[in-house]
């Protein structure tokens, strides 16, 4: 190893000990450590050792930069906080002075010393040991260069709900191509099912459909509806995704969207998807009137032609001849640079709580069913009626927290149900004038204009009863309440059990991760939290990125949230993607693994161990290779290789062993370690 003077083996190391105000200096004697380094580590190449109040400040950084120039340093050690915080800062300072940034090493004498003990003597000795270790290590450092990856300017957005649509529009408007993949026949997601949205009571379809058509017509957005993701390979900037376009049985180049096929189709089916089992559709259908794209799909499991070979009414009546009964699934390959996962959520299955009577008592509905009922294009054309399809209720009970905040089902709060329930209270009052009861544990109306909405509902005379409902019982079993439902609950505000008869019960069911979220996470190589929602890189400071570079998350796929938050996340993810694309090329940290082909025996143990699928086997050369861009530098393969053929640049064996030697070189005698005061 030559130093900047060209002399073999002789480094010039600068040591800087930070006070960090009193964070470090209050426990560690920083003056003593600096002095000690100057006097004792000369043999290790230390030519200058200083202490300073705040090394991360611009003056502190300037100190390093000037010294590098003046003293002709070729290695730098900063004893300060954790690298998590300021590694980038000091590397930047070093780079500005013309030295390779990877020739700078930090010793964390705050998190690992001053913040874990109050024993000043022991702390100072340990700080010395850590400085010695860092100095020994940094001498072994080699200059490293960042890895550059080109970024494909196309983006894949998975999920055509409001978050996915927002993200797609933002990226498309920036001038870049977007593939929007959606598994249903139309984009729009759950928002298309709602009637009114809180707190403004905007009609959901009215605010959503303009976005949907914009997305449908945008020259930069390619819609792939009725499609599923089959396979994902690649890394940031270069993903290869296989998409299976399911057979629509309709030729989209000929179809005009006139809807005659749907009218003429004789097979009526309960629509479990869009109408949530409350309404019907035909075997050939578009999920709703304003579907984008307008092309219908044929449900072959329920189609008379596919079951018996007869009918073909749609084919007969289709003027442009767009029905293609011999259609097949098609696999297409997309090359994209980044992916945004906006796959949304599923609803809690209310059948899991039999005591609320869902599925057994006719007039118990879930929140999503009620949304469809209120929707003017829904199964009752917007009339709020009981299960008989015609009678309006005179009293309605709305039960909060069904399947949420409960250790037996989902422990988390689903965030939107309190507002949704208050919205229902308002709609019921407005359209039927019925008595409304809301049964809640806590009223969660935290965002902008939400509490004002709550005040409005109070004004309308809704009965708010604080108590988690124990049971919903068939009123026919008691006295003359036949036809009604009895809600049994403790009204905790008066401390009594009440039995309240109502005509209709609405269950505010919680949100859950999509049933196949695990599959999606696996395909894209991201992780999920304990509750099944996708995990963001940092819960507070980085909510749309994931630990996998190039894969972003937006909307409810990352956790329950309302529409404004989903839209914000869609825009945020889009902005991140666009910033990557604009850079055309991204530099990645060079702390990666590298396999020495000569030493590799081809045992392939590392291939299966890599959590990022970054190691592949070259059949020709019969050795394993690490794909630098996919590698995240975790070190698993380095440890696992029996031949020691894998080194981690920035984490070589020599570096680690040198650091250990340095740490142990400072003798810490038992007698100077005083017992810490209790």
């Amino acid at each position, binding site marked *: 190893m030559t130093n900047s003077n060209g002399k073999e083996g002789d480094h010039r190391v600068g040591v800087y000990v930070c006070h960090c105000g009193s964070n470090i200096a209050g426990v560690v004697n920083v003056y003593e450590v600096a002095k000690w380094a100057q006097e004792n580590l000369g043999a290790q190449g230390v030519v200058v050792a200083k202490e300073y109040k705040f090394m991360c400040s611009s003056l502190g950084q300037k100190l390093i930069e000037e010294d590098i120039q003046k003293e002709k340093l070729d290695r730098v050690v900063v004893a300060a906080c954790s690298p998590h915080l300021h590694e980038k800062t000091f590397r930047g300072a070093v780079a500005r002075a013309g030295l390779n940034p990877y020739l700078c090493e930090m010793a964390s004498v705050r998190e690992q010393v001053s913040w874990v003990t109050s024993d000043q003597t022991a702390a100072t000795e340990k700080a010395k040991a850590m400085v010695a270790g860092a100095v020994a290590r940094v001498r072994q450092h080699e200059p490293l260069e960042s890895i550059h990856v080109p970024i494909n300017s196309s983006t894949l957005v998975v999920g055509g709900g409001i978050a996915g649509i927002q993200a797609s529009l933002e990226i498309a408007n920036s001038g870049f191509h977007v593939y929007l993949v959606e598994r249903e026949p139309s984009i729009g997601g759950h928002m298309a099912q709602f009637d009114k949205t809180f707190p403004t009571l905007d009609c959901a379809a009215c605010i959503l459909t303009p976005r949907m058509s914009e997305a449908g017509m945008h020259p930069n957005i390619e819609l792939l509806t009725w499609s599923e993701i089959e396979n994902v390979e690649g890394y940031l900037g270069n993903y290869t995704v296989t998409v299976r376009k399911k057979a629509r049985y309709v030729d989209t180049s000929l179809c005009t969207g006139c809807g005659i096929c749907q009218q003429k189709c004789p097979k009526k089916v309960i629509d479990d998807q869009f109408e949530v089992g409350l309404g019907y559709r035909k075997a050939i259908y578009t999920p709703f009137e304003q579907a984008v794209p307008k092309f219908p799909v044929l449900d072959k499991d329920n189609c008379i032609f596919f079951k018996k070979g007869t009918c073909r009414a749609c084919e007969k009546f289709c003027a442009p001849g767009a029905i293609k009964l011999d259609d097949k699934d098609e696999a297409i390959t997309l090359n994209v640079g980044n992916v945004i996962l906006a796959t949304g959520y599923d609803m809690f299955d209310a059948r899991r709580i039999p005591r609320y009577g869902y599925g057994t008592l006719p007039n118990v509905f879930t929140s999503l069913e009620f949304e469809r009922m209120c929707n003017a294009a829904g199964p009752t054309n917007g009339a709020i009626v009981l299960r008989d399809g015609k009678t309006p209720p005179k009293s309605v009970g709305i039960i909060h927290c069904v399947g949420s905040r409960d250790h037996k089902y989902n422990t988390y709060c689903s965030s939107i149900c309190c507002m949704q329930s208050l919205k229902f209270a308002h709609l019921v009052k407005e359209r039927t004038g019925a008595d409304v009861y809301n049964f809640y544990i806590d009223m969660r109306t935290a965002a902008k204009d939400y509490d004002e909405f709550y005040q409005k509902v109070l004004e309308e005379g809704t009965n708010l009863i604080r108590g988690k409902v124990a049971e919903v019982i068939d009123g026919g*079993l008691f006295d003359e309440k036949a036809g009604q439902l009895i809600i049994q609950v403790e009204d905790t505000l008066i401390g009594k059990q009440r039995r309240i008869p109502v005509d209709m019960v609405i269950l505010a069911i919680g949100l859950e991760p999509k049933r196949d979220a695990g599959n999606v996470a696996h395909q894209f190589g991201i992780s999920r939290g304990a509750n099944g929602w996708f995990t963001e890189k940092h819960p507070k400071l980085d909510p749309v990125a994931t630990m996998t570079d190039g894969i972003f998350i937006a909307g409810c796929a990352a956790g329950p949230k309302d529409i404004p938050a989903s839209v914000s996340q869609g825009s945020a993810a889009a902005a991140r993607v666009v910033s990557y694309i604009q850079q055309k090329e991204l530099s990645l940290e060079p702390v990666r693994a590298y396999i020495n082909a000569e030493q590799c025996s081809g045992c392939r143990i590392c291939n299966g161990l890599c959590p990022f699928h970054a190691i592949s086997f070259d059949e020709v050369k019969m050795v394993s290779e690490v794909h630098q861009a996919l590698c995240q530098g975790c070190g698993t393969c380095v440890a696992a290789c029996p031949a020691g053929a894998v080194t981690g640049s920035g984490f070589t064996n020599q570096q680690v062993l040198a650091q250990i030697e340095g740490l142990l070189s400072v003798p810490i005698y038992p007698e100077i370690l005083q017992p810490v005061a209790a």
Partner: protein
Amino acid sequence: MKYLFYPGCSLHSSSSAYLDSLIAIQGKLGLEFSEVEDWNCCGANEYIALHRIPSYALIARNLALAEQQVNGSNTLVAACSACYVNLARTAKYMGTDKELNTRVNDALAAGGMHYTPGSVEVRHILDLMCNKLGACKVKKLVERPLTGLRVAPYYGCMVLRPDPDKRWRDPESPTALEELILATGAELIDFPLRTHCCSGHMPQINTETSLDLIHRLVEGAVQSGADLLITTCPLCQLNIDGYQAEMNKQFGTSHKMPILFFTQLIGLAFGLSPKSLGIGKEITSAAQALARIGVKVEPEPPVLKRPPKDQRLPMPHMPKPYGDDL
């Protein structure tokens, strides 16, 4: 198959019909019950009201006796729901709570006994019949199907809750008695209050409230169209059977809803005589209901009018938890 059996105080007195019928059907089911020798009362919910460790020690003596008794089985079966919960709970807590285990075994040692947690498996007879034997096996042994008899199941509380050993899939929506009723060939009545409390020992403390609960249950059974109720718990049987007259007086009703033990129903389906099953010991007589057995119900005449346009909203799909092969 051999089992150890804990009858409990009620089976020897107020619910002797339960014991009669259980013994009558055991042979046919291939079961052999041996009573735990010199068993003592489990204390119901009374002893634990006064003392904690002594109540667990009282119950644990039975577990210790079961552990010692050699009959080729380490499964202890209880028929009374309260006895079952006491035994199962004690067995479980002694396994999970070290402090309790130490103290209780210390007390047992004063009587020269010891119980090793985990050495005895505690099961309720309903759990045994449904989850171990299976309703299908019971169906195969039926000689005299009870076609036309409308039977409603009534579980009460403690056979399903708290379920310390997780024997049941869902404590609020069980299917065990339903499967057995279908196996006997009887008509299953959907009784929504089947897991609601009969009020337990409340008649001795606050009669008015308990009669109210009993009234609800009987009223509900009548409205559901049941000829009779079947149950698994002596106290449920006693409350609904014995207090029905008083309940009728209080509410001005004249219901005659008989309630039998499920083992009695199974015994009838096996072709055994009512007397051998203890039928006749109930205060609200089941004679009228049983007289319907063998009577075929006439089918409804066909409706000739065109039905009105069905604007009903479809109900959600409910999975059928039982009955596919019954």
